[in-house]
């Protein structure tokens, strides 16, 4: 008995050591990525010329509204897009282009080098297998370890995400929503990937569970020093967790920079509007201000700035000429023609009357 225990401990520590050596943060470079979907009425430009970089160990937040292309971007990075999607550009993982990988190489890269925490934990687990077996399957698909070792590893991961290891024997339906999301996180972490992408990991959860899960992800990020990308529509989640923030609108990144800079001193009118529209529990009793109108069609996008229709500061120049991302500070860039007047725009953007004028202009009021 004693011998057995000792043996298993040695095995566990050997496994852990092996894992530790394999963990290193990954550098991700996305370069001019385009993802178009073919439809009967034309191409939907879901992701249009997106470039960014995640340095090893960085924590990037991508924020945007539904339909802005956040999830398509994530799927593009993972090559999870449907066959008929048109993909162009580069996604480089430590210099290797993911989009050009052979299927064998891609399979090795997924889960060991980069992993995905999906939005709907319910649909990510197979209902007819025990949760533990699903994690073991993922481990043994990549590593040559015994079933028992893999189970042991799964138990360690459950411990890490705050689930009792004996729950590994349960089926997904025996878990609550929060527990399922934790199981998915355990699954995403189990092969200690260098890059973890979390796509709306807490959207379906209650605020208390959300808080626990985000704290857990944050701690894991610190401990494993993996690179992270958090995709969400929730500015407050980004504000609390991410070092850098990218704001997406209509398939493009419109602002990018350190989170504090982007949220404290937004340089794109869309970011300014988003800030006005977002409730802050600690904020005063100022009213929330909506951004009038809705995002443009991605099938036949306007010629100029995609936000021009809803922008209170739009001029003819904006409607004719597409602005590109330009530097507005250290590591901070925005895609707006009027970044030189940003201080005055920021002041005007705080007033409700500024946005009411847009509603009148586009015939909503």
């Amino acid at each position, binding site marked *: 008995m004693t011998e057995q225990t000792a043996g298993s401990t040695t095995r566990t520590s050997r496994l852990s050591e092996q894992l530790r050596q394999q963990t290193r943060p990954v550098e991700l470079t996305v370069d001019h990525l385009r993802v178009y979907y073919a439809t009967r009425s034309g191409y939907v430009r879901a992701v249009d010329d997106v470039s960014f970089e995640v340095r090893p160990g960085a924590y990037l937040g991508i924020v945007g509204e539904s339909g802005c292309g956040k999830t398509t971007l994530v799927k593009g990075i993972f090559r999870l897009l449907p066959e008929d999607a048109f993909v162009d550009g580069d996604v480089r993982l430590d210099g290797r282009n993911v989009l050009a990988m052979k299927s064998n190489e891609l399979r090795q890269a997924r889960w060991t080098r980069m992993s995905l925490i999906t939005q709907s934990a319910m649909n990510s687990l197979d209902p007819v297998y025990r949760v533990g077996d699903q994690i073991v399957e993922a481990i043994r698909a990549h590593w040559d370890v015994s079933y028992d070792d893999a189970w042991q590893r799964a138990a360690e991961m459950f411990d890490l995400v705050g689930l009792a290891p004996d729950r590994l024997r349960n089926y997904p339906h025996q878990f609550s929503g929060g527990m399922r999301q934790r199981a998915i996180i355990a699954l995403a972490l189990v092969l200690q990937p260098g890059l973890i992408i979390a796509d709306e990991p807490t959207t379906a959860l*209650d605020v208390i569970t959300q808080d626990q899960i985000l704290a857990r992800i944050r701690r894991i990020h610190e401990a494993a020093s993996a690179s992270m990308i958090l995709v969400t529509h929730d500015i407050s989640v980004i*504000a609390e967790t991410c070092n850098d923030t990218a704001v997406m609108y209509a398939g493009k990144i419109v602002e990018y920079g350190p989170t504090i800079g982007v949220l404290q001193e937004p340089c794109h009118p869309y970011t300014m509007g988003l800030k006005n529209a977002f409730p802050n*529990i600690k904020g005063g009793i100022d009213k929330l201000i*909506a951004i009038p109108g809705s995002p443009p069609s991605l099938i036949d996008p306007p010629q100029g700035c995609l936000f021009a229709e809803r922008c209170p500061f739009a001029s003819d120049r904006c409607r004719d000429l597409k602005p590109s991302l330009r530097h507005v500070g250290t590591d901070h860039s925005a895609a707006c023609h009027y970044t030189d007047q940003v201080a005055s725009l920021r002041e005007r953007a705080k007033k409700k009357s500024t946005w009411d004028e847009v509603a009148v202009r586009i015939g909503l009021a």
Partner: protein
Amino acid sequence: MTTRREPGNSLDQDRAATPAPVIEAKGLKKHFPVDTGVIAALVRRGPPRTVKAIDGVDVSVSSRSIFGLVGESGCGKSTLGMTLVRLYEPTAGRIFLSGEEVTHIHGDGLQQFRRRAQIIFQDPYGSLNPRLTVGEAVEEPLKIHGIGDRAERAVRVVESLERVNLQPRHFLHRYPHELSGGQRQRAVIARTLVLKPDFVVADEPISMLDVSIRAGILDLLEMLSKDLGLGVLYVSHDISTVRYVCDRVAIMYLGVFVEHGETDEVIDYPAHPYTQALMAAVPIADPTATRRRVELPGEVPTPIDIPSGCRFRTRCPCVMDICSRVAPPWQEVNPGHHVVCHLYQSSVTPTRLAKEAR
């Protein structure tokens, strides 16, 4: 600070200060039977089990005000909203609309009641018939209730659409699939308004909408209450939006209210440990802000087996011996601010305690 035995009394005091309640419920309960099948009945020992979705709630919503109802999923907040508009038959307790008892009305009485009490659901995509134009959808309730002739109905439909900022000339003949999510929710609100109800339940009206347009729908709710004088029950899991629209707020946990009062008072000085945990879990949209987190152990217990004594004791960070034995009575911690918790029966100054706990 007085000790009260009956939860009902806590609301009595506020009544003098606020206008007459448009809707009021006393001791409201809604239990759903589980395992109702034949086999379950045969193998079962003891009485049938029930899910106690609402388990003794007193609530009153005044006209010209928005009452916020906040809680986690499964706490019974939607069931309460649906029971108040009689989409569910209450198991126990009484409901009054403008002082008139409506607890068990049926037939014509219920139809009359439906005209005066309306509900807006979370999903504007599922709430509109895809085969009806906006104009037809908004007109339909008038037809059902036999209100006006064709011309009169047309006038009311146009009025209603204008109220919600959907220009009739653009939207009257459009179908739901041609509208954005925000426009659809506006159409749903227009359909609610056309009957000129006295009371509206808005069940998570913005949670499926994009952040940038939510504020517009909240403004509409405010318009309903302040300009049209309706009483609105705003049901939400998101306590951070409550502050912007609600006059009063109640926090719900496992089928009962645990705290209620003026919105600013409850948000600034949460008294119940659950409210404090709920508030502490809300992320702040300010990258420079710091937040003291409260870790709540475990999960919400099942509403079939509700813990004895205080319902929150299984997860409460401040649990005491008394909590498992005695259900705490309502206490008034500040004028108009009530809480069910044993912590406030001692001589501790509640406001200070609440501040420290944050």
